[in-house]
Structures are given as C-alpha cells and as structure tokens.
C-alpha cells in the first residue's frame, strides 16, 4: 500500500517537472514568436541553401571561367566569352529550337489528349471497366523514364521490335524509328506523350472535380448549351489546376534528358539533341565545365522566361475577369 502511494507520488512529481519544463519552453517561445518561427525554418532553409542556392551561385560563377576537367590548367576567368561562344554556336541554337519544338508539341498534345480523356472519365463511375482503364492509363506515368526509354527502344528496334513486326506484317515496311533522323525526333516525342498524357488526365480530373456540383446542376436546369457550360461553369473553376498542370509539364519537359538519352543519346547526328542532352554532353562527355555552366544558366533563364510569360498571361486574364 505504502509503496503504491510512493510510486504515485514519484509519478506525480515527474509529471509536474515535465509540465514545468513544457511550460517554460512554451513561455519562452511565446515571448519570442519570431525566433521560434526561424527555428522551425532552419532545416528547410539549410537544405535550400546547400542544395539550391550554393550550386546555383557556383554555376553562375563557373560560367565566367574557362575550365576543363581534362586539362591540367586550372580555371581561367574569361568574362562573357562562354556566353558569346554559345550564342554564336549553330548546334546549340539547333538544340534550343528542338527543345522548344519538343516542349510545345509534347505539352500541347499531352494537354489536348489529357483534357479529352479527362472529360471522358469525369463523372464516369458507371462506365464499365473505368477502374481498369484508368489504372492502365496511369501506368506510364509511374514507370522510370530510363525504363520506359529502354522499353521503347526495344519496341522501335528495326529487327527485333514488336512495333516493326506489326508494321512489316501490315505494310511490308521496316521503319528505323530511332536510327533515321527524320523519324527519331517524333519517335521520342511520341514516348514522351505516352508517358506524360496521364499526368494531364490526372490534372484535368482534379480540375473538373473542383467544379461545384450545384453550378453544373443549375446549368442543366437552365438548359445552357454545352459550350456555355464549359465557358461559364467548368472553365472558371478548373482552369487554374489545368494551367498548373501545363506549367509543371512545361518545366519538366524543358529538362527532359534521361528518356531521350536512353533511346538515342541525342542522335542520330543531333536529331534528338535537346538542350538538356547537349548540356550533359558538354559537361560529362567533353568536360567543358565553364561552357556547360553558361549553357545551364541560359537554359535556366529561358525556362524562367517561358514560365514568367505564361504566368503573366494567366494573371492578366484573371485580373480582366
């Protein structure tokens, strides 16, 4: 009996002291709210600083130097020479134009297909096989780009590929999808579309899910024509999520490297050499770190410009509404 009481007393004393410490911490942070906020931010800020800010600043600095990893000479300050070299290099301009074409066509087609398929699956709970179809459609998105690249490289193969097997059976032709410069770009673009259309379907479904049911019902009761429903009910609610999807895809598309590198390594010639591949080759094949840093900076600025124009249009339109 006595020991029970003693135990209870000890427990109470412990709880009280824990409570006192907790209270002291609470009071301390209540007095220094700003400090507390900063303490909470420290982990994320450190990560941001170490993984983003320092490498970016390093890259900016490096872009003004001539520095090769395979040369015995150390880094040499050359001013804006790297940038001049890049901007006067036709191959790089070609890479840029290919990248823009890849982004515009890829994201454009993914958006159109994504929206169409999104509408098809919207409110389609009773559609037979819906779950299977959606799982099937979303699979490409979760495959690693390297795996998808390898997979399609096999499909496209002129001698062993199943794609060519069917083409040969139906049309008696053999198409060298990845080896022929006139097909290679569109062949890799097709894989990118296959991979990322599900993402746009997902975004469209999320966007359409944000349209209030009552507004759709009101439009139905009011007998609004379909286009008017789209313009005045569906789009005002869903456009932001769809636009966000396009924005994310644009940024990602700009950086496409692994998928194409696995399939063509940028070839044949430089038919599929997008800017990210050019950058990779410059840095890790030619080891020109200065020039590749300058190219990376230009790519970064282009992507920022691209998305800024896009966001500006979006905000401008919103203000007008």
């Amino acid at each position, binding site marked *: 009996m006595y020991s029970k009481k003693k135990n209870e007393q000890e427990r109470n004393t412990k709880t009280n002291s824990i409570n006192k410490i907790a209270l002291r911490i609470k009071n301390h942070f209540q007095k220094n709210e700003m400090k507390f906020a900063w303490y909470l931010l420290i982990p994320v800020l450190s990560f941001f600083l170490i993984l983003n800010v320092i490498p970016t600043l390093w890259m900016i600095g490096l872009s003004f130097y001539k520095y090769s990893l395979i040369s015995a000479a150390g880094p040499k300050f050359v001013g804006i020479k790297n940038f001049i070299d890049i901007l006067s290099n036709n191959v790089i301009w070609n890479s840029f134009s290919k990248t823009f074409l890849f982004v515009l066509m890829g994201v454009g087609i993914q958006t159109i297909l994504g929206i169409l398929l999104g509408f098809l699956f919207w409110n389609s709970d009773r559609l037979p096989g819906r779950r299977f179809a959606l799982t099937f459609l979303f699979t490409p998105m979760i495959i690693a780009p390297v795996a998808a690249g390898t997979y399609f490289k096999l499909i496209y193969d002129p001698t062993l590929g199943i794609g060519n097997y069917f083409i040969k059976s139906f049309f008696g032709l053999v198409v060298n999808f990845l080896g022929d410069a006139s097909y290679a770009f569109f062949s890799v673009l097709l894989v990118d579309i296959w991979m990322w259309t599900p993402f746009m379907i997902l975004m469209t479904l999320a966007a359409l899910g944000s349209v209030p049911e009552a507004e759709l*019902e009101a*439009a139905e*009761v009011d007998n609004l*024509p379909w286009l008017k429903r789209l313009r005045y*009910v569906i789009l005002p609610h869903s456009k932001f999520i769809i636009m966000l999807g396009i924005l994310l895809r644009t940024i990602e598309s700009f950086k496409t490297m692994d998928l194409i590198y696995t399939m063509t390594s940028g070839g044949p010639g430089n038919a599929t050499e997008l800017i990210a591949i050019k950058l990779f080759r410059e840095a890790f094949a030619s080891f020109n770190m200065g020039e590749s840093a300058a190219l990376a900076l230009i790519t970064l600025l282009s992507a920022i410009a691209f998305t800024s124009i896009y966001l500006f249009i979006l905000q401008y339109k919103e203000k007008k509404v």
Partner: protein
Amino acid sequence: MAIIRIEKLRKEFKEVVAVNDLTLDFEDSKITCLLGPSGCGKTTLLRMIAGLEKMTSGNIYFNDIKINDLPPRKRNVGMVFQYPVVYRGIDVYHNIELPLLKEGLSSKERKKRIYDVAEMVGIENSLKKNINQLDNATKQFVAVAREIARQPEILLFDEPITNVDANSKLQFKHAFKELTKQLKQTIIYVTHDQTEAMSFADKIALMNDGKIIQYDSPRKLYNEPETTFGGWFLGNPGMNFITQPCQKEDGQFKIKSDQFARTVILKKRRNIKGKVKIGIRPEYIKVSNEKLPYGIKSEIKRKSITIGGQYLLTIQRGDIIVKAKIPHKKGLGLSKNIWVEFPLDRITVFDNGNRIKEKLQYRE
C-alpha cells in the same frame, strides 16, 4: 401554372430510405414549403422533382403528365440552390440573360424581361456589376432573378438563405414575400426554418424520416398538429407535453391529474391505450399573480427574455416542468406563488403520438 403530383415516391441511398413512399399533390400556383429537420428527405424530394436525383420507385406528374424520365432541362423548372449559383466572369445582366438566349426572344424582349425581373427582385442597380464583386446575398438574388426571368412553370427553392448573413436573411425574407405575391408559378420551398415556412407558405408539408407527417396550412399546422413531432418541431420553444394516465369511467375517458383544477374528460373517445399526452404551446399558458379560476399554484423557476420582448418562463407544477411565454408584465418575478392555467380549448391531446380530434372538457 402546373400541378405537381407525386405518387408513392421513394428514394433509397443504399440502406438509407431518404424518401419513403410519398404521395402528395402540390397545389397549382401556390407556395408549398417542405419543412423538417436536417436529413428528413426534403431536399432529396425537391431534387427528384427537379430531375437531379433519380427515384428508386414511384412517379412524378406535372399536369398529369408523367415526367419520371425527363431530364431536368426539359422539365421547365427553375431552381435556386442553397449555395448562390451564378455564372462566373460576366456581369449580372448577362447572368440573367444566359438561359434566355435559347428561348428565341429578341434582344429587346430579353432586355425588358431582365429589367422587369431585376426591379422585382431589387437588383436593378447591380445589373452592370461583375458577378465577382457581389456579396453572397446579392448573388443569391441574381440566382433568383435568373430563374424567374426564365418564366418556368415551377420554381424550386432549396434553402436559399442558409448561406447568407443574418441581416441579408431578413432582407431576403422580406423581398421574397413581396416577390411571391407577384409570381404565378407553383413554388416549392425547402427549409428547416419554421419562421420562413410560416411566413411564406400557403401550405406546409412537414417531413420527418422521409415521410410527410402533415400537409396543411401554416395556421392549422401550428394549432392542430397531427402528431407530437409536429407539436414539438413547430414553435420556439415547441409544445409542452405532459403524459397523463387516462381511465374509462361511465363510458367516458377521465384524466385525473394535479395539472388541472378539476377532473377533465374526453366524452366521445372510444379507445385509449392507458396514457395520453397533453400538449400545450407555451404562449397559450395563462400565468398570473392573482388567482385564476382553473389555475393551479406553481413556481417560476427561471425567467428569460426572448426576441420580441416576451418572457420565457420555466414553471414547475408539481413534479412537471413546463415553458410558458408571456407578454412583458411587471411584478412577475421568480416566485413560488403564481397561478398557472392550461386553457382546455388550447390543449391538444395525443394518443400514441397522434392527435385526438376531441377537445378536453371539465367534468360537470
């Protein structure tokens, strides 16, 4: 404009029966309120009439034409939702105009109709304003105007003022009352607010658990509730109920209770199962400092003031507590010596939850 008839209408959501085999005629060109607590099936019923919800079984007729499978757009109904539904990105004028574009009206006719309706609803000064600039209450007025402008045969309102602030609610109630005087449509108005139902409706369908408990005029519903639920649900606070034993003596049912100064009887009633419930509304209870002829000495336990300046008294009569509502009277404080009387003509007697049509009488 249209007579709506529902026949054995039923809606089940898995195991839940939301609307339970309802049969009812909604009167032509009248306002019927569907009143009941949340989850009683009133909105589901309204949505089935609009065509937004498929019925599990039963039929709906508009002017004797079965419309079970007709899509909402072909039913010629207008509907105002709980949440103010407006079309985004356009001004008020175009919001009202949008559904009219398919009606084959000339722009002049459309303009006249829009201005007439806007004036009727009281939003004529907001016609040029963008919809995004409006507060919730005005948006709801726009939604009402849009539906009225279409001139459908039936207008359905699904708790339209639930999502507007208190001041706008009053404004809306007043405007709606004025508006309905000018409308000729058959209107069904869903609400859980009895004051709304009491002030707008020509008839009220009181609902509970997917069933219509009573379908009557507001006055009758209030004064002659068919069930104890009706007595309890209507009024603020609802009816007082006192359960009393009832004995048959000399062909009459006698209620001997210390709640009455004398024995009370039910002369005509043939059968009662042991006990009855006596219901009386708080405002019908007589309370006085002076002796009342049929009063009983009681004690005021609590006194509070209600909206409108009336006193709400909590009175103890023996071991029973009742609520009484009285006009402001001086000198009626918390006291043990007050006289309380239940006027027999104001009492409703319930047997097994259902109203007995006969009134109580004092035994001679």
